[in-house]
């Protein structure tokens, strides 16, 4: 089943055409990694998938619902599409568990006791059970990102979007976050991951997409794309990032 359909997506900031013409289908349970240089439009593309960026033209369908349509209740769609940010964006005035239960309680109307129970399960899953009452400021980067993942998962999303989830982390903390993401992939979550972690892409992705100057230059399964890139631009990019 197709979870995400993107058709002729274009996005401009004024005169700056960031995404030029992107079309892609992403299937249920598929893990897609998006790679590309900074400024290539890969983060913007991801942010168009839950309409954090308004779409200039084209269509994005999430489970056959066109989120570019004015009639679509975007808040409903976003409940099904989790997002994890480079800078975590935890709510600093709320404790870890309050961060996690906010979405289920306010957006879905889940009773507090139930939301807390689920939050504790999720904290166990990301290995942070003992941090329930801590505030974000007291957590390490890796811990923050794991809480952020738990917060997204609390909405029971069908799709998870990751926007460079390890780019702001100290190197020794990258592993713990990737571990959680691998686990998620294994459980069959549909994931779209913008990343610079080529190792992760190689190991976990079903498909890797190379975006440059607002266009999909090349897409393939990871082994093919990394070992045998067809396009010159892909080759040039990979020669820079794969040492």
């Amino acid at each position: 089943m197709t979870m995400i359909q993107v058709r002729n997506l274009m996005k401009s900031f004024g005169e700056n055409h960031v995404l030029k013409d992107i079309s892609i289908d992403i299937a249920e349970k598929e893990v897609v990694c998006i790679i590309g240089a900074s400024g290539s439009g890969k983060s913007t593309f991801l942010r168009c998938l839950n309409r954090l960026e308004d779409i200039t033209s084209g269509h994005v369908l999430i489970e056959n619902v066109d989120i570019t349509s004015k009639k679509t209740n975007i808040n409903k769609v976003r409940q099904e599409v989790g997002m994890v940010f480079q800078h975590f964006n935890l709510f600093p005035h709320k404790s870890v568990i309050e961060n996690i239960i906010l979405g289920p309680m306010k957006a879905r109307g889940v009773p507090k006791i139930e939301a807390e129970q689920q939050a504790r399960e999720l904290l166990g899953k990301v290995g942070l059970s003992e941090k329930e009452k801590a505030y974000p400021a007291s957590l390490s980067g890796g811990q923050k990102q794991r809480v952020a993942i738990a917060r997204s998962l609390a909405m029971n999303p069908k799709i998870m979007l990751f926007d460079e989830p390890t780019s702001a982390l100290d190197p020794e903390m990258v592993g713990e976050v990737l571990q959680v993401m691998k686990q998620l992939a294994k459980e069959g979550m549909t994931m779209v991951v913008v990343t610079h972690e080529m190792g992760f892409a190689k190991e976990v992705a079903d498909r890797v997409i190379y975006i440059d100057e607002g266009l999909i230059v090349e897409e393939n399964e990871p082994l093919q794309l990394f070992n045998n890139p067809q396009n010159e631009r892909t080759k040039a990019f990979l020669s820079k990032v794969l040492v």
Partner: protein
Amino acid sequence: MEVIMKSLPYLFDGLQVTLKVFVIAIIIGFFLGLIVALLRLSPFFILRWIAKFFVDAIRGTPILVQLFFIYFGLNTLEFISLDRMTAGILTIAINAGAYYAEIMRAGIQSIDRGQDEAARSLGLTNVQSMKFVILPQAFRRMLPTFTNQAIISLKDTSLLSVIGIADLTQRGQVQIAATFKAFEIWIVVGVLYFIIIYLLSLLSSFLERRFKLS
């Protein structure tokens, strides 16, 4: 000394009026400020323009002129009849509201955009994100500036004596007229204002510390 002791009960009555005006005005001003701040951040040009006009008009004119306009000016209109207390409270509230609006707008805008994005990506509505994520953080950040403005508003209430509201300042004047002890009475009046304002700033730093803990 005896004069002071004798005037104190009258002055305390005035202090009560001052506090009453202040508390009511600051509450109205707070909500007025919040509404105006949200209008200024709204996507609709006309709402933003109205809010900006209001803020500019209030900030660009002396509060005494505003008081005279509301009490004497508006009251010449046939369908409006404001007693001095209402006019006084309204003036302080509107004036504070304009300044609060600017404080709140700046406070709201100072919150990282990622906070709203995180809230919205969970499926929260615009209003929910504002209520549960943005405003609680913005208010914490704004607390010192809030207190500052509240103190200014409290001091502004002394202007209401000119339209005959029997506040602390006006009672002081009356006591001086009766006793001719201008030096002593004005010191006492000043000390009473000072104590209230000092307590207010203590309350603010207490709240600030409490918020920091969490």
